[in-house]
Each structure stands twice: as structure tokens, then as C-alpha cells.
């Protein structure tokens, strides 16, 4: 269920919730997202105490563990500023699952609801709140966009990434076969059911490559870890030295294209 | 305790304390389905049932047996099962034999002639009680005069439909006719000839029921 929301007026300050994956595996994407926001004249606050939204435990069937970790995040955003998250699935966790997670705890439930109301996925924030229109400074290129299932179905923001890329006048956005299908990551699914997950990512990488795009961009680092991880594995298997499917977070791509 | 009591006991124990409001089916249909004129409904009915591979012929009220005769002749069918005692059955019994079509009647319980029904009845004629434009659907209420197997076993099923009896939707048909107050032994919606796509999603007609469904649409003044 995607609640209707009225974008707030352009804020001066936002919180940045990086997510544990970005903090540890894709810090460059986090930096680029922050820079992108700052270039819009926004002060970006990074609460040092942040860790993880709790989603890995939540989706694996360990809500108690998730609750403990999520409860900690509830304390990090005292000001009434938007919380921008460079990941659709983590934003979805905070926006849609926190109130459920704390259903039995009225105090935290109220905190969770207040937080949920101001959680934004990065591309959604750029488009819906900042009305960001990227000015393309790069040369002609073709990219393909992968949107995470949570961003698409939980956050309903599959159109904002496409819109941002569409605004880049020298960028052609290719359309992959079975675009809306899952890449096969699914957190612990990828290690609990490696055969199925492996088949899914294999098909996803094939479809992305078949577009002829020179790179894949995504607003979700979990998907990128899976997709790029498989593409690199395949390259190694087949003795390729240069990546057959490079990729990056959409924030990095946007920042580069808009930098003179 | 019986299985019945145990099941009901568990369900009562597990039931929610409140029942949600009765869903408003009427307003959904009012908001989402057009109410069309007779001509529009006939056209919509025809479009959808033809899409489902039925053949539709517009026929005059006083001369439909001529079309029926043509339909049978074109298929080399010389024998038709009709419902004796129904108005349309009596017309067929009067008018088809002189044109060389033998008419058999369903005048005894199926047990006495099951093999003949299955093996030697190439075509049947029944009436439709009404129809549904939205989906191109015939409504049949088989009865003692026009029993259930007539619309199922013969490979060619011809249906006579009065074009003034087409409803917009299934919902409209059942509410307008007060079906909730009682249904017959068997009531049927039929929306084309029998078909299957069970082999490699390839559509094939005549799976178990009629291979051909032919609708004679009675139009004009009653």
C-alpha cells in the first residue's frame, strides 16, 4: 500500500540514513548522494550513531532481532527533517514496516509512525520534493536502469529514477526484457536458495547485457551487489579482463553527468 | 463429537470478534459498468461470444428455422435433438422434418438412451433464458422439458436467444431476476464452444462439450 503523500516544502536540512550496505560496501555512492543533495543547497546531516534499518533480520524471520536494531534507529532523527535513504528497500522497511514492527509497543509505534512519514528514497526526494532537473554535461551514452522490487512495489518510486535519467539529454535509457522482475537478491534468500537466486541473477544480467547499454544504474545497492557480483564472476569465468557490465548507484551516475 | 462439531468449534473459537460491513457490490457495478441500449448490448454480446469462437446469426422471429436448416445443411447434419413441449421445440418439430431434418426428442430419462445421446446425437437445439453483454454469455436454465445434457453432449449446440433478453452484466441478470430467492437444479452460463489450452497453451475447441456453438439471435418486434 503506497499512501498518498504531499511533498513538504523544500527543506533546508535533511538527515541522511546511509544504510549498512552503503556505509560498508558502497561508501562512494553515499558520498555522491550527499554531494548531490548539498549541491541543491541542502544541509545534509549524517547521524554518526546510525547502523542498519533492521531489514535483514526482519525478512529472515527474526523480528525480535530486527526490533532491537530498528529501535536504535528510531532515536537518531530528533529534528522534524526529512530522512533521505539511498536505497528503496531500506526506505521501504522504515516507511512501511516500522509501524508494524512496533505494533505492540505504543510509544515506539508512535515514534515509528512519525519517522515513517518523513522517510524518502533518494530519487523520490530529488524528484518529488526538490523538483531536481539534472543538467546533462556528459557525452552520448546508453544506460539501463534496474529498480529494486521494494522501490517499485513498496515505495512506488520506479518512475522517479526513470524520470531523472530521462532528464539527461545525452543519455539514452535502454529497456531490458522482464524489466520489473526481481534480480534474485532477496537478502538471505541468495544464500538459502542459491540455485534459484543464481538462476534469477543469471537471467537478469543476460537481459541487462542484451540491451547493449554500457552500464547499469540502480538506486539499490543490494541489487547492485548481486547483479555486479554475478557479472564480474561471469567475466572471470570467461576470462574477460574488462567488466562486461559495469554499474553504479544512480547517485554516482547523476553526480558525474551533472559535473562540469 | 463429530467432525462437523469439531470443525465448527474450532472456527467459532478462532473467528474474529467483528464482521466487516457487507461489501457494496451494487455500487461497484454502477460505477464501473455501462448501462447500454438494446442495440449496444446485442452488439457487445455478439462481439464477445464471437471472439470465443461461437457463430451468431441474426434471425427473424417468424423464419428462424430457415437459418437453422441452413446451418445444419452446411454441416451435413440430418438429425437434431429438440425439446418437445417448448414453443421453439414445437416450431422446430413442425418446420424442420418437411425440410429433411429428422428431429428427435428427449422424452425419457437419460438412463434409457444414454448411449444414443453420446454416440448418435449430432446436434441439439435449446433456448437461452437470457444473455449477458459484458462477457458474451448465454444463460440457460435446463428443466424437465429441456434437460441438462442437451447443451453438453451433442457436438453442435444451437441456441435460440431473444435479443431483448440481454442484460448488461451477470450481476444485473441475477439481481433483476431475483436468483437469490431460489435457483433451479442447474443453471448455466455458456460463453462459447467447449475448449482447452492444456497442451502447450494451444487453444483447441471441442474438448468435452460441443465443438460448435451457434447462436440464433431473434431480433425485431415480438
Amino acid at each position, binding site marked *: 500500500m503506497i499512501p498518498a503523500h504531499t511533498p513538504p516544502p523544500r527543506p533546508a536540512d535533511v538527515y541522511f540514513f546511509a544504510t549498512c550496505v552503503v556505509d560498508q560496501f558502497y*561508501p562512494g555512492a553515499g558520498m555522491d548522494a550527499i554531494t548531490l543533495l548539498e549541491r541543491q543547497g541542502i544541509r545534509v546531516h549524517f547521524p554518526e550513531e546510525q547502523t542498519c534499518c533492521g531489514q535483514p533480520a526482519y525478512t529472515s524471520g527474526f523480528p525480535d532481532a530486527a526490533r532491537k536494531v530498528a529501535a536504535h534507529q528510531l532515536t537518531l532523527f530528533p529534528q522534524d527533517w526529512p530522512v533521505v535513504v539511498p536505497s528503496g528497500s531500506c526506505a521501504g522497511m522504515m516507511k512501511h514496516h516500522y509501524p508494524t514492527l512496533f505494533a505492540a509497543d505504543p510509544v515506539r509505534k508512535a515514534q515509528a509512525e512519525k519517522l515513517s512519514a518523513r522517510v524518502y528514497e533518494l530519487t523520490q526526494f530529488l524528484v518529488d520534493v526538490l523538483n531536481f532537473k539534472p543538467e546533462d554535461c556528459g557525452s552520448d551514452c546508453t544506460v539501463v536502469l534496474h529498480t529494486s522490487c521494494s522501490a517499485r512495489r513498496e515505495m512506488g518510486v520506479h518512475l522517479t529514477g526513470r524520470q531523472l535519467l530521462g532528464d539527461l539529454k545525452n543519455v539514452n535509457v535502454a529497456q531490458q526484457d522482464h524489466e520489473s522482475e*526481481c534480480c534474485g537478491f532477496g537478502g538471505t534468500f541468495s544464500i538459502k536458495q542459491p540455485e534459484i537466486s*543464481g538462476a534469477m541473477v543469471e537471467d537478469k544480467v543476460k537481459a541487462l547485457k542484451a540491451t547493449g547499454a554500457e552500464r547499469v544504474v540502480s538506486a539499490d545497492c543490494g541489487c547492485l551487489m548481486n547483479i555486479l557480483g554475478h557479472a564480474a564472476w561471469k567475466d572471470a569465468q570467461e576470462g574477460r579482463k574488462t567488466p562486461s557490465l559495469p554499474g553504479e548507484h544512480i547517485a554516482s551516475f547523476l553526480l558525474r553527468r551533472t559535473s562540469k | 463429537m463429530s467432525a462437523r462439531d469439531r470443525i465448527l468449534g474450532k472456527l467459532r473459537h478462532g473467528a474474529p470478534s467483528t464482521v466487516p460491513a457487507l461489501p457494496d457490490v451494487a455500487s461497484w457495478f454502477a460505477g464501473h459498468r455501462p448501462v447500454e441500449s438494446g442495440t449496444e448490448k446485442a452488439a457487445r454480446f455478439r462481439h464477445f461470444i464471437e471472439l470465443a469462437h461461437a457463430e451468431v446469426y441474426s434471425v427473424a422471429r417468424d423464419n428462424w428455422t430457415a437459418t437453422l436448416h441452413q446451418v445444419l445443411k452446411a454441416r451435413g447434419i440430418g438429425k437434431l435433438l429438440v425439446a418437445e413441449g417448448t414453443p421453439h421445440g414445437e416450431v422446430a418439430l413442425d418446420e424442420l422434418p418437411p425440410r429433411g431434418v429428422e428431429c428427435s426428442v428427449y422424452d425419457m430419462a437419460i438412463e434409457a438412451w444414454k448411449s444414443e445421446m453420446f454416440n448418435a446425437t449430432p446436434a441439439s437445439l435449446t433456448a437461452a433464458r437470457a444473455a449477458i453483454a459484458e462477457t458474451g454469455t448465454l444463460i440457460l436454465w435446463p428443466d424437465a422439458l429441456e434437460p441438462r445434457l442437451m447443451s453438453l453432449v451433442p457436438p453442435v449446440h444451437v441456441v435460440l436467444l431473444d435479443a431483448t433478453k440481454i442484460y448488461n452484466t451477470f450481476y444485473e441478470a441475477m439481481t433483476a431476476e431475483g436468483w437469490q430467492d431460489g435457483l433451479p437444479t442447474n443453471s448455466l452460463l455458456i460463453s462459447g464452444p467447449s475448449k482447452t489450452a492444456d497442451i502447450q497453451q494451444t487453444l483447441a475447441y471441442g474438448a468435452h462439450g460441443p465443438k460448435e456453438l451457434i447462436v440464433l439471435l431473434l431480433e425485431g418486434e415480438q
Partner: protein
Amino acid sequence: MNAQPIHFKPSEGFRARSKAVVDNPFLRQSFRGAMDFLMSKRAAQFPDDEELQSLRSLGEAIRQYNLAKLPELLERLEANLTRNGVKVHWAETPDEANAIILGICQRHSAKLMVKGKSMVSEEIELNHAAEAAGVGALESDMGEYIVQLANEKPSHIIMPAIHKTKEEIARLFADKVEGVDYTDNVDALIQIGRNVLRQKFLEADIGLSGVNFAVAETGTLCLVENEGNGRMCTTAPPIHIAITGIEKIVEKLEHVPPLLSLLTRSATGQNISTYFNMISSPRKPGEKDGPEEVHLVLLDNGRSQAYADEQLRKTLQCIRCGACMNHCPVYTRIGGHAYGTTYPGPIGKIVSPHMLGLEATSSMATASSLCGACGEVCPVKIPIPELLMRLREEAFTAPHADPVMRGQGAGYSPLISGIWRGWAMVYRSPLLYRMATWLGSRFGGLLPARQGAWTSVRVPLRPAGKRLRDMLRERG
């Protein structure tokens, strides 16, 4: 007709079965093609998203309303069917259901039962029980007939033989059907099936069917089908036995049109099925055909367990359209048989644990990336991903005294639970998190090149040399 019973332990060998399909490029391509076909057929039926969403909401409301009144409605259904002359039976377990059905067969010295499509009859393994009792049970839905002839199980609830090519079916018919030469012409194959089965409809003593909707206010059993075999089974033999799960009930006849529309459009992309067959009584005096006796068997088999929990009750909203499997990226990769349950795909994962216990099904809930495609297309808005997470919790939490499900805690592992407790301890503490991630950033290079299942098709994960927080601090 010697179908082997499956002694359901779907969790056992699930990974091996799914690997076998995943490694077979021909099967992969074939499932993909079939699912693409069904998805595009459904999409074509719902061009207007507002109409679709409002109809789904209505469907959900109808199912929830009727489930809330389930015990009362079952009694009304029973009373009205009984008044109409239909005999109603209740079965808590598959064994009880089989005993009821075979008892009716025996009272009538029945030799042959023809069956219309009924997943509930698959659920109770009726064919096997009938065979053991000396009653022939012949499937008459074309797909089910093919699957039975091949001594297999359906791999899809709507398209039972979706895993088979026409060439395989051609060879099967040439081998198993008397006097038939090889042909892979689909029309010819269907005519072969038609001719064999027509003779059986004529001879059968009993016709068995499922039920799509049972209407309490009128005492009516509704059946949805395209082939006409369901009508044959419920009309030609002298006795008709219908079997249904206790959840498929609606109070009012007017609840049927929205559900029917959702069902056929979601299942096969048809605006309506060829036949919608409403049966309210056995043959009445003066009527010339139809069964002399009609029986309805109401089966629980774990449904009352799901019913007792507010969240799990939503499982019972299902109208068995199969859209969730058609849209499931996991089902598309492994097909129906790999699941090892009567009901495969997303609906199978959420309904089977109530039938078979979590002890037999705990790994099924893990076989989902929680992508949400199933929940998005479900015509009655069952939140399948949420229910999968709940089942994971029920399976993996340590067994406790007052479980809501049979087999609660069956997947419990002290080690795994300990790991998550440890994870929570680190991730709830900024200090421990900073220490752990600092170590990761310094020594991540020392992580092994083989990281279990992850590196079976991916390069190893290595934390970046600097964390985002380090980069921010350096930037100042």
C-alpha cells in the same frame, strides 16, 4: 492409474529438485515461455488500473466479510443444501474425506469415478485411496488426464500439464492409449482425449468435482471451467460428489460475479470461462437427467488453524486463480513439481504449512526473494510476502508452549538464532557497529575468496577500504 502417493516432506530435497530444473535449459525456457504467455493474457484483461484496483479491493472485502462469518455461513450452506436434497459431509482430515467418498462409492458398488478438476482431491490423494479401495479414479480435465497418464502430479493449479510439450504428450498418447498412432497435432491429441473420456463419462458410476464458490443463501455449488468435463462429471453419472475446502464459501449470490470476474481474468486472461455451472440440487422428480444423488464434502485439513490467527486467516481469502505462480520469478525458474506439494508457487508456500505442518514445509517459506510480484497481482489482495515472513518467524523461532501452528519452531536452529542475536547486539550498539565495520574495512581483504553459496555464481563480497563515515570525517 497407479499414481504413487507423495509422502509429503516438501522441505526434503527441495534444493536438489529446484537445482535439477534450474540446470535444464529446455525446461527453463519452457516455463519462462508459458509464464510470459499467461502474464500477457492477464495484463490484456486489465487495461484500466483503476478498475483493477477497485475490483481487487471489492474482492478482498467480499472474501474477508465471508471469512469473518464462516462458521455461521457453513451452517447456513449445510441447511440450504440439505433442504435442496444435497447431502453434506464434514471431514477434518484427508483420511476422513477419502473414507466419506469411498464409503459412497462402496454403497453404490461403484467401479469407475470420473473426476473433474479438483485440487482438493489432489490434496487428499483421492486417486491413490480410490485405487487401494478398488475404485478406478479417472481424471477428465485434459491437463489432469495427461498428467495421470504419465503417472505424474499437476505442476500448476490451473494448467496441470504446463511442464509438458506437445511432443511429449504425443509420445505418451501413442504409448498409453490403445490404437493411437503418434501425432503432435494439438487438435488431434485433444480429439483422442475426447473420444477416450466420452466413453468413460457414459460408463462412470460416480462423478467427482471441486467447487469454486459455495453460495450459502441459495445452497448452490458453482464450478468454473472451459472444457465441459466438469459439467459431464456433475451431470452424466448417477452420483455426483463435490469436495471443497471450508473456506470457499460466500453468503450471497451477488458476491459471485466480482469473484468470478477476478478469477477468470487473473487465471487465464479470459473475461469469463466457457462454462459457469451452478448446481443447487440433485435430479428432481420429472427431470430426465442429472445425478440422483449429490454430495458435498467439506474439508478442513488445517484451514481452521490458519483461520484462528488474524494475519494467517488472509491465506484463506484465496480463490485459486494461480496468478501468483504465473508472476513468480521463483516458480518461473523451478516449475511446480520442485515444490513437492499439491499447491505450488507462492500460494502453495503459504497454504501448505497449515496442511502439512511446518515440520515438513519450513524451507518453503525461505524460497522467496520477497519481491512482491505475487501480492501485487493477487486478485483478493492476500499479502503473500508478509505471510511468508510470518511463516519464517513461526518456523525459526524456538519452539514455545502455545504455538498457533503445527510444527512451530521446526526450523529452529540455536546456532542461527544465536547469530541473529549477535547481529542485533552489534547493530543496536553504535560502538560495536563502529568497531566491527572498522575491522571489516581494514581487514576485509582477508575475507575468503569462497563465501559459501554467495560465491557459487558471484565474486566474493569485500567491504570498501573506507566506510562512508570515514570518508565524511576526512572531508570534514
